[in-house]
């Protein structure tokens, strides 16, 4: 037995432990927690931070978070939403509108946004699923609903129209910099805050996946008619999926609005935002719990590096997004997380055809 086999057997017996997912999660999130310090280590005289700044890491976790939220609906139930910017923007706008215009604490505004987004999600779902919209048609409908919110807000002076909101100082709503104010004076606390967000949505995603709800979601994704024939109330569970997903996506929008200085209809509701929010899940592996996180670590830094290094070529980051999306969807619809398994299958096939002793 080679040492590689020993390692593999060791891993396998670890994998069968009941608490394996918890331990793996702890290791993964421990690694993420250490990441701001890891990037400052000198590697051969070059700091990793030169390529991977704390800002990029925050952005990476934001999109890992939103992709995780998107995944609970679209990855699990198979109802592909192309309009999650609606929920993201609603979260951002609810938070800012309440804190700027009424000096209401952003944490409160965030949950208001989550509630409103969930209701909007239920409305979209109710209308679409009642009329059995699926696949591309459903995706287009969600896009239309997202654009609708953007148009409405652009034309509403009560919500500052196209100008959007400028994030207030904590003292404007009787708070001091810190967790309670949802504002910090440096990026590091922001990093740990979004890491906390990511942890919560990941635990929720994992819990959903490992309950009957998850199995019903997957059954609906695979074949709605077959699922219904054994008692799965598909309509209700699709609504549940979109509500959970919209709620968490809105919280991500709230975070976004408290991290960046301004929000405008054409940033948080941007057409392209719909893609950014979901792409990590598609690249990483839709329907898996780690896929969105891994996907974001591939997609987000890459597009950031492209955007900052080729400033002369406008929109190159989007070209990279587009290229990635096409390649993944065509060649690896199960995402990057399926690669080890595919590699093993390939290895078995190559070794099998090479003639065994």
């Amino acid at each position, binding site marked *: 037995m080679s040492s590689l086999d020993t390692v593999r057997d060791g891993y396998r017996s670890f994998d069968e432990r009941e608490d394996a997912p918890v331990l793996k999660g702890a290791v993964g999130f421990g690694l993420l927690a250490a990441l701001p310090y890891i990037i400052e280590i000198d590697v051969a005289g070059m700091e990793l931070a030169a390529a991977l700044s704390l800002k990029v890491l925050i952005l990476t976790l934001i999109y890992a978070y939103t992709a995780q939220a998107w995944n609970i609906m679209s990855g699990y139930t198979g109802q592909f939403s192309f309009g999650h910017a609606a929920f993201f923007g609603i979260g951002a706008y609810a938070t800012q509108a309440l804190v700027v215009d009424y000096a209401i604490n952003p944490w409160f505004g965030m949950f208001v946004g989550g509630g409103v987004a969930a209701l909007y999600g239920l409305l979209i779902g109710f209308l679409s699923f009642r009329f059995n919209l699926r696949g591309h048609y459903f995706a287009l409908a969600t896009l239309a609903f997202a654009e609708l919110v953007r148009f409405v807000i652009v034309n509403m002076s009560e919500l500052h129209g196209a100008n959007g909101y400028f994030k207030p100082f904590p003292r404007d709503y009787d708070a001091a910099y810190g967790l309670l104010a949802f504002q910090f004076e440096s990026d590091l606390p922001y990093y740990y805050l979004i890491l906390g967000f990511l942890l919560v949505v990941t635990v929720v995603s994992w819990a959903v996946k490992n309950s*009957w709800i998850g199995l019903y979601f997957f059954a609906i994704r695979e074949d709605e*008619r077959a699922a219904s*024939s054994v*008692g799965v109330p598909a309509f209700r569970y699709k609504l549940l999926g979109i509500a959970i997903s919209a709620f968490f996506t809105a919280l991500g929008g709230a975070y976004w609005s408290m991290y960046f200085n301004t929000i405008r209809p054409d940033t948080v509701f941007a057409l392209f935002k719909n893609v950014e929010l979901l792409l990590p899940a598609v690249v990483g592996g839709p329907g898996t719990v780690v896929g969105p996180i891994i996907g974001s670590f591939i997609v987000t830094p890459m597009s950031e590096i492209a955007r900052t290094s080729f400033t002369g070529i406008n929109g190159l980051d989007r070209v990279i997004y587009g290229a990635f999306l096409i390649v993944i969807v065509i060649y690896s619809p199960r995402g990057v997380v399926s690669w080890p398994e595919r590699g093993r299958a390939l290895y078995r096939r190559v070794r099998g055809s090479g003639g065994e002793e």
Partner: protein
Amino acid sequence: MAADSETSREPTEGETGERAGDPVLEADGVGKQFAGLRALEDVDMTVHRGEIVGLIGPNGAGKTTLFNCISGTFPPSEGRIYLDGQEITDLQAHQIARRGLARTFQITRPLEELTVVENAMVGAHIHTRRRSEAREIAMEQLAFVGLADRADEEAGELTVGAQKRLELARAVATRPTVLLLDEIMAGLTPSESEEMLGLFRRLRERGTSLLVIEHDMKAIMKISDYVKVLDNGRSIAFGRPKTVVENEAVIEAYVGGTGFDA
């Protein structure tokens, strides 16, 4: 009660003798109209507890349409359907499944990217929200159809024969009172068919009533307590298998069409 009028009307076609048990599934004057096409017209039928009833007829006779009406894929345009004495006519598929009626599909519908046991668990979750309990029920049903050793394989990778058995396991995991089987033996090898007939009998022993669409006449005549014949959306005969094959209208429908062993 509707049940009484139904049972008294039912045995009029063909000689039936005494039917055991109370009626569990009743269709009363069921009709289905698709934009100008009459797929079903005034079909009555009952399945009694513990019976295996065969549903036969030439292609396009409306057998699958009747299944779809009963199982809630779409409601019938006319008539009523009762399950265990309760009306289910306008209920949706998942509601009907929860009342105790399960079905399989003519073209198998495995949940491809789920494992074999997960497929059966979807059915088992009708009774419990706990994964571990659902898994237990699912494993029992997989053992019943002989798929227990393939529990962790992806359903999409099974052969047609295995997929048919998986469909049966998934449906049976809901512990149905009535099970509708739509050509579950089509495409099976002779030995697989024989095993399937064995499963039918064991299901009946458990008290499950079966309504079976099948094209294999030999099999259906062997297994069925009663046979219902549809032609052109209408019911043309009902009775014991032996009497039905001698029924002139039935011979006409088949010989005039494609013959028995089509």
